[in-house]
């Protein structure tokens, strides 16, 4: 699944570690999601969406 995490992070000047700390996950996990190696569960996707104050579909896009 594609996503806009990298762009959204850059807009806020957040590092992967900043995002990881905010979500309570490891930086490796953020990297895996961002690069499309791992699709997050629905609860984690909601946490990401809440953090960016966006809807899930505004962040994650179907291939």
């Amino acid at each position, binding site marked *: 699944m594609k996503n806009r995490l990298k762009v959204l992070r850059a807009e806020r000047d957040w590092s992967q*570690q900043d995002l*990881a*700390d*905010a979500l*309570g*996950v*490891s*930086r*490796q*996990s953020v990297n*895996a*999601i961002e690069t499309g*190696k*791992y699709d*997050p*569960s629905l609860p*984690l996707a909601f946490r990401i969406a809440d953090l960016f104050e966006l809807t899930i579909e505004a962040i994650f896009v179907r291939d």
Partner: protein
Amino acid sequence: MLSSKTLAPYMRRYTIRIMLFMAAYVLILSGSLAFANNGAEHGKATLIGLALITAFPIIGVFWAIFRLLVETDDEYQRLLFAKQTLLATAFTLVIVTVWQFLEVYGVVTAGPQWMGVIWFAMLGLAAPITRWKA
């Protein structure tokens, strides 16, 4: 919330548990072997008791590893740990199967032994494979 400078709580608990069980293993093994080889005659029940006591910390390590899978609240890390344990189990089963048939055909005199130790070694081998490019 996690910090880049500290271990995640689930990892800290895992590390403490492993260290405690390994320390217990060293103490119990050395004590049990010294007792078993003290020159006195020991009954079968005593020797079974020694075997169970010595196995206890190793069983504790298995428990700690599977608690890690339960307690990891980072879902991607949990997936990686699950893959690592499955890969370690697969490697161990391959070794056991080959070893078993080597014994069946008389190439070696004893069948598979020290399976726990082999599984731990395979767990170590599976870690970099699982996390490579993860």
